[in-house]
């Protein structure tokens, strides 16, 4: 365990009710693994099924947490936003109480722009895969 659910807010800018990861389980330079239990009060639930939008946000926040952990010694952790999503394929959606495992692989980095691949699973079943472009953003420059 690298970052537990209790401390995840130190590493991602999102707050309730928009936090879509629990724990950051593994981190290496180019691979991050998170988990996320689909809670009954998740805002993206519809008839006990978690919508695809939450899966994409889960991949983005898994990426942000991994990058945040790797850069934790830098002062003033930047916020980030999704610059783009490509090659997205949806296979299935999780249900309430399912535990999602998400694996993010860093493909390339250009300055504060990261291209990552995200895949989410419940047990061994893959639900979604996509490529994600994340852009780090210094908050001051946008205010």
């Amino acid at each position, binding site marked *: 365990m690298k970052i537990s659910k209790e401390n995840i807010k130190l590493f991602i800018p*999102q707050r309730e009710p*928009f*936090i879509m990861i629990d724990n950051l389980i593994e981190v290496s330079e180019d691979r991050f693994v998170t988990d996320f239990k689909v809670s009954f009060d998740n805002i993206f*639930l519809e008839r006990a099924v978690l919508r695809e*939008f939450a899966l994409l946000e889960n991949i983005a926040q898994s990426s942000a947490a991994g990058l945040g952990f790797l850069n934790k010694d830098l002062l003033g952790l930047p916020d980030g*936003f*999704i610059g*783009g999503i490509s090659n*997205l394929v949806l296979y299935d959606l999780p249900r309430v109480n399912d535990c999602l495992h998400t694996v993010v692989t860093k493909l390339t980095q250009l300055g504060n722009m990261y291209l990552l691949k995200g895949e989410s699973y419940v047990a061994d079943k893959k639900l979604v895969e996509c490529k994600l472009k994340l852009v780090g953003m210094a908050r001051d420059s*946008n205010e």
Partner: protein
Amino acid sequence: MKLTGHFFKILNTTHTDSKEFSTRLALNPAHIVYKGHFPGYPVTPGVIQLQMVHELLEGHLSKSLKMKNMSQCKFLKILNPLETSAITVHLELVEQQGYLSVKARGENEADTFFKLRANYQTK
């Protein structure tokens, strides 16, 4: 969570033809999504912009859809509802064998906030 009528309100819709339409919508900066994204600094999440497109399509077709795949979407500019209170979403639909191919973009005046190409299936 349904966004239509809560996160955004439809102001008007212009149909070019049955395969193309534009909807002007107003964002609700007081919505609970903005409480967490981000506190004191509301930014419309990219995935919420995707859900807005999804619900506009469902409303247009009067049926439930699920996304099958998305070849690409780009989020080009931060959409802060306090700075941009309304946007126009343009949608183009092409019926393919067994699925619906969609191009969408969201803009306001000279600003383009997102562009996407995705395929949807009837639920």
